[in-house]
């Protein structure tokens, strides 16, 4: 299938996205956050919790004086390593009695601090590379089925039940498993610790939980002869920490949007912009495919009206991702099948939007989300709507396909719901596997005209965002009818300006040019 889209307009949209992102990127370069600094500690090998169950990376960063924090945790931590000769984890554990305060280590010169840190920086980076190479080797030995990659969620609240559900889903045809997080986790300014068995609407993302499901899926992959991917959520207040943990435990995808937390979780925009950049640098290096969250625009506002905003956000997400060093095939730009199913020709509009994204982002790992907003509890109609969604996905060549559940809006999926959903997708996609190669939209017809309208409206929207500036445009509710101010929202107190002498050894190693030379 091929649409007659205006190539000059696509070029113009990319130029506008670059102009929109540039000033935000300048802000990012001058700031850091508590979550970024905690990520540095995690990558240096600091893990575990205090007797009060505060994660050790939080305890150390929270104990920094404002002056020390402004230079990043690395210089102070490097001095402590140099003066004590301890390993990172042992050092932090030895500081329990002093409230994890690093300020008494003030003597080691900068070169000694850097030298003491260097082997652990290398160890952290090497661990990530080892997992990336492990994934590549497994994918070569256990090739995936062709896209659209069938993706389902598990969400029992109990990681051991999730493990059972994940393996069952893989056997039923799932190629990607996401463990949905407990609904409150995005607002926690720390990452919970250890295996967890209680959660609401999902299961806490912890490093131990990642490892439990990864091991089960590795085992299932061997039995099935195809690699089954694991996904979690690098969103909320701990984006870069989750990215680090996911890199170390070999997750394959992460939800990771540059604006989602701002719009839909009321997380401060400065916090989000800084955090998303460092998390994406890590994702780029670890070979993790990011999934962006444009589908959310369509669930909270009208799906037809919001189509240009979805495309505009895809351009912006692509630009932020490129600036963090992500290659196109690791950028899973989001879209969703959310037009009212009772609207005449809704299928044509859906095909137009999905095909438009496919042609504008030809190498991207496009992520297509299922209908949710108009799912009512009528499981029979829902199963039919999902079938047309499945058809749209295979015809337009989407890459990552989130399977819709007939029981959407009733409960978090049952094991049997997932099996029905996967059967639906497998049937439709097998039956229509090459339909997209055989048909062409009628020139000047409904599909083509809709695509052209969306692109033209997107260009105007990007022009407006460029003239307002991205932060101000968000305040003006340009995206998803949601307004957020630059100084409002959660997590702003964790954002700080970098002082002269600021040092983040991982950010230095992972700037796109540096990371490229390390590969």
């Amino acid at each position, binding site marked *: 299938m091929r649409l007659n889209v205006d190539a000059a307009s696509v070029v113009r949209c990319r130029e506008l996205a670059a102009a929109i992102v540039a000033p935000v990127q300048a802000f990012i370069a001058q700031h850091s956050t508590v979550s970024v600094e905690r990520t540095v500690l995690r990558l240096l090998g600091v893990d575990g919790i205090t007797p009060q169950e505060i994660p050790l990376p939080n305890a150390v960063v929270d104990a920094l004086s404002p002056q020390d924090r402004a230079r990043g945790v690395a210089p102070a931590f490097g001095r402590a390593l140099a003066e004590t000769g301890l390993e990172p984890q042992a050092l932090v554990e030895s500081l329990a009695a002093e409230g994890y305060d690093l300020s008494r280590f003030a003597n080691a010169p900068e070169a000694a601090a850097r030298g003491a840190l260097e082997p652990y920086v290398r160890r952290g980076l090497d661990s990530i590379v080892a997992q990336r190479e492990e994934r590549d080797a497994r994918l070569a030995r256990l090739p995936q089925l062709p896209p659209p990659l069938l993706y389902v969620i598990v969400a029992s*609240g109990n990681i051991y039940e999730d493990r059972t559900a994940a*393996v*069952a*889903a893989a*056997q*039923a045809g799932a190629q990607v498993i996401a463990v949905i997080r*407990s*609904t*409150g986790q*995005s*607002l926690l300014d720390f990452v919970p610790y250890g295996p967890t068995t209680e959660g*609401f*609407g999902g299961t806490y993302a912890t490093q131990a939980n990642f490892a439990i499901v990864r091991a089960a899926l590795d085992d299932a992959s061997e039995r099935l002869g195809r690699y089954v991917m694991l996904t979690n959520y690098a969103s909320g207040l701990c984006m870069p920490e989750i990215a680090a943990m996911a890199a170390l435990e070999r997750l394959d995808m992460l939800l990771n949007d540059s604006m989602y937390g701002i719009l*839909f*979780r*009321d997380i401060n925009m400065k916090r989000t912009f800084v955090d998303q950049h460092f998390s994406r640098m890590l994702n780029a290096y670890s070979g993790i495919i990011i999934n962006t969250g444009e589908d959310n625009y369509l*669930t*909270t*506002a*009208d799906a037809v009206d919001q189509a240009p905003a979805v495309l505009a956000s895809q351009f912006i997400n692509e630009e932020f991702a490129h600036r963090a060093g992500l290659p196109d095939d690791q950028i899973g730009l989001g879209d969703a099948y959310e037009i009212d199913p009772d609207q005449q020709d809704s299928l044509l509009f859906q095909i137009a939007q999905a095909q438009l994204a496919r042609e504008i982002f030809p190498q991207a790992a496009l992520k297509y989300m299922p209908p*949710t*907003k108009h799912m*009512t*509890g009528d499981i029979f109609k829902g199963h039919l709507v999902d079938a047309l969604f499945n058809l749209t996905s295979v015809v337009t060549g989407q890459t990552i396909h989130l399977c819709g559940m007939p029981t959407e*809006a*009733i*409960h*978090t999926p*049952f*094991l*049997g719901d997932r*099996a*029905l959903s996967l059967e639906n997708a497998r049937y439709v996609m097998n039956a229509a596997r090459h339909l997209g190669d055989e048909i062409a939209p009628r020139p000047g017809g409904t599909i083509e005209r809709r695509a052209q309208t969306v692109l033209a409206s997107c260009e105007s929207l990007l022009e407006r965002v460029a003239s307002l500036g991205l932060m101000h445009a968000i305040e003006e509710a340009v995206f998803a*009818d949601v307004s957020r101010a630059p100084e409002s929202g959660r997590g702003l107190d964790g954002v700080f300006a970098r002082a002269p002498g600021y040092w983040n050894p991982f950010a230095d190693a992972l700037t796109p040019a540096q990371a490229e030379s390390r590969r």
Partner: protein
Amino acid sequence: MTRLVRPYGDTQNDGKVQLSFTLPLQWSEAADEAARQLVAKMGFADVQVADGRPIADGFSFFVVYAATPQSVDADAIEAPSASSHAMSLEEIDAFVHERIGRKIRVAGACIGTDAHTVGIDAILNMKGYKGDYGLERYREFETFNLGSQVAVEELAAYAKERRIDALLASQAVTQKGSDIKNFTALGELLEAEGVRDNIVLICGGPRVTNLLASELGYDAGFGRGTLPSQVAAYIAITLASRFRSGGAHW
């Protein structure tokens, strides 16, 4: 008067139902028989396992048809709807202007850790739902949408401070009864603050019914498919009757 009803398959009173479920059993003919016996133990007759198949190692899925001998008296059912007063936006605005004489202050939020704002947004946001405008569009409503993941303490304090006339608490996530706990906690907090009677307290969500709402001590509950004008009419009529009867209000 008694009016006994049973499910209708193709004949009056045949009692036919369909069930589907998963058993943690490797599929075999014995698994089909296990499904049949289980449904028979539920009290059904004429059990037919129409489909039984493996869906994963150790799990099988079944579609079963059966007949129930049970019936209910349809005339003895009490589940009053809160959506019985059909009025248009213009009619509601005129009604509020005449009977209340000031704007009605409405606040709504997804409470607890719930982040599913589709429902509350459909009721409150200008755009509304299915062509029915949301409460923000009404001239006589002053609307505050507090968004998602609002703690019940925060919402109760807000309602008291802003002298909110109608409070809408929304819950989509129902896992392990979290919705009931949150709804209950909000009602108790408003009682403790001494403002419960001043407020038209409403809960909403895909699994909410008006019956559930009355059991929780709420004034009304609205479930899936609710239109904003139904909520608006309920608030206007309920508040107007409190004004008229000298009931509590701000």
